[in-house]
């Protein structure tokens, strides 16, 4: 792969790649540094003489301690975890079944139902949040985790269905035919033969769905109102900013800790996540 002189490799490959990496990762570095920087260093203007942006000599865990003890951050973490897990499980369940039906069974209107689900896949949350808030209120789900557990699947199910359809299509249909001849009902052939084989696809869909629901903002912002019900993104946004005052140390600590679960899940399943992303657009 090495073509031409060494400098060419630097100019056309090493330097651009390095710039990309720095640009893409710098905000996270900044997040980390800020969250351990003591306040008196933090609020030193950038044109001050002793402004040391990239490191601190007095790292502190004060912001993290305050975040965990003086705010509801840990409650928000628990809420987000519960909501993300529950909505992911619901979406996986629905997406698995629907994906199987759409990719494997012949039935009337299969095409139009598939198209319908595909269209809902493209519907952004911001299109419907106002009437949906009304619906949530009518169902008496407002300000409860259920508001999100039940609405997150609306954007997760189409995604899971789409991904699973693609995955099921790659499994030879003879496997379930053989199982059915072997004495399994259609249901059992699906559950005992096809689903276990589809585990990598299920993992991809699940991880992707989990990060999407951990990420979700506008529904959580609109449907939840009491501080102790909030999710991490909303809690950080609305509760760590008091009036006009931003507590940057706490904010960055919150951003850092709030990112850890997704980063953790992600780090274990990078490959599944990547195939989830690519599957999400290819189907």
């Amino acid at each position, binding site marked *: 792969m090495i073509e031409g002189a060494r400098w060419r490799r630097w100019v056309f490959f090493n330097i651009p*790649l390095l710039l*990309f*990496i720095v640009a*893409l990762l710098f*905000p996270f570095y*900044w997040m980390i540094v*800020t969250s351990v920087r003591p306040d008196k260093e*933090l*609020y030193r203007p*950038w044109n001050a003489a002793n402004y040391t*942006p990239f490191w601190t000599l007095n790292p502190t865990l004060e912001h993290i301690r305050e975040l965990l003890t003086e705010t509801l951050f840990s409650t928000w973490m628990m809420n987000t975890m519960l909501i993300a897990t529950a909505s992911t499980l*619901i979406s996986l*369940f*629905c*997406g698995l*079944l*629907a994906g*199987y*039906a*759409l990719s494997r*069974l012949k*039935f009337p209107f*299969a095409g139009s*139902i598939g*198209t*319908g689900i595909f269209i809902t896949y*493209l*519907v*952004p949350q911001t*299109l*419907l*949040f*106002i*009437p*949906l808030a*009304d*619906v949530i209120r009518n169902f008496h789900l407002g300000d409860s985790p259920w508001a999100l557990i039940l*609405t997150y*699947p*609306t954007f997760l*199910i189409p995604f899971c269905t789409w991904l699973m359809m693609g995955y099921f299509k790659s499994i030879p249909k003879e496997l379930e035919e053989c199982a059915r001849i072997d004495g399994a*009902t*259609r*249901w059992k052939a699906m559950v005992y033969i096809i689903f276990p084989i589809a585990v990598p696809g299920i993992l991809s869909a699940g991880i992707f769905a989990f990060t999407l629901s*951990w990420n979700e*903002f*506008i529904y959580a912002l609109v449907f939840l109102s009491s501080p102790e019900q909030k999710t991490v*993104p909303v809690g*950080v*946004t609305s509760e760590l900013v008091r009036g006009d005052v931003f507590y*940057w140390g706490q*904010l960055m600590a919150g*951003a850092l800790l709030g*990112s850890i679960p997704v980063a953790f899940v*992600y780090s274990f399943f*990078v490959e599944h*996540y*990547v195939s989830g*992303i690519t599957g999400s*657009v290819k189907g």
Partner: protein
Amino acid sequence: MATAGAATPRPYVATPRRGPITRLLEDERWLASALLLPTIVLLGLFIAYPFVKGVLLAVTDTKVGIPGKFVGFDNFEKLWHDNIFHVAVYNTFLYTAVTTVFKLALGLWLALLLNRHFRGKAMVRAFILLPFIIPTVLSTFAWKWMFDPTFSVLNWILYQANIITGRVNWLGDPDLAIISVMVVNIWRGVPFFAITLLAGLQTISPELHEAAAIDGARAWNRFRHVTWPLLLPVTMVVVLFSVIQTFADFQLVYVLTGGGPANATHLFATYAYQIGVGTGLLSEGAAVSLAIFPVLLLVVIIQLLYIRRVETV
């Protein structure tokens, strides 16, 4: 029955006893209905129903706590004369167009870089996806802090590099604010473009490149005539996805500027939020967010036509 099976040949049961549910689920049509039921119920309740409700809401004068009456297209007419809405429309289109071009160009560049072999490639690929997977709101706060007029590290870097002489108020100036929001959107979107395009690149067999190289094609020609045409289908899908997401974007503007300064950076979604939730004018807010719909519809139609074309070819 199981005990009888051991010694003597198992007698064949002429009509096996199966429960009614088992028999029903052996029929493809019934099984399909059962499998699709949970999905259709959830999507019906929380997508189709709210959509109808949103349309109905948009033609009334409902406010929070006050049931409205039918007012026809008054809300849309009001928007037609609303200056902030004009700004929001302009911003949304500009924002979508500019960021999509940059995300595509930079994403493609990054994908081409990542398509080469180098040490630590898996590691790099895993790390560059971070902007995409870390909750948007949280990473946007890091940017907001980086854009802070008094404590901005960006200002410090630019000052040290002798590019600026005084302070830059990134989010305080209307023009700079929208550019700042775009920068963050591009930053967040590039990894997604890069990774999906990389997946597309990897499906192109190396032999094609070798064939092109033997033909004497130089790198640029090789890209233009071999890689790009083969990458186009994936690119198309990724761009359409991104267009919808960007067009309906909310979080970045909400966190960075809140639509300000002086309502200069509103997008459809943030303006809808400000009116519908902030001011409580539900029906007007619903009308604003419905303005996303025509564009969504257009993209869906392109998408469906495109998929059909690909399938029939």
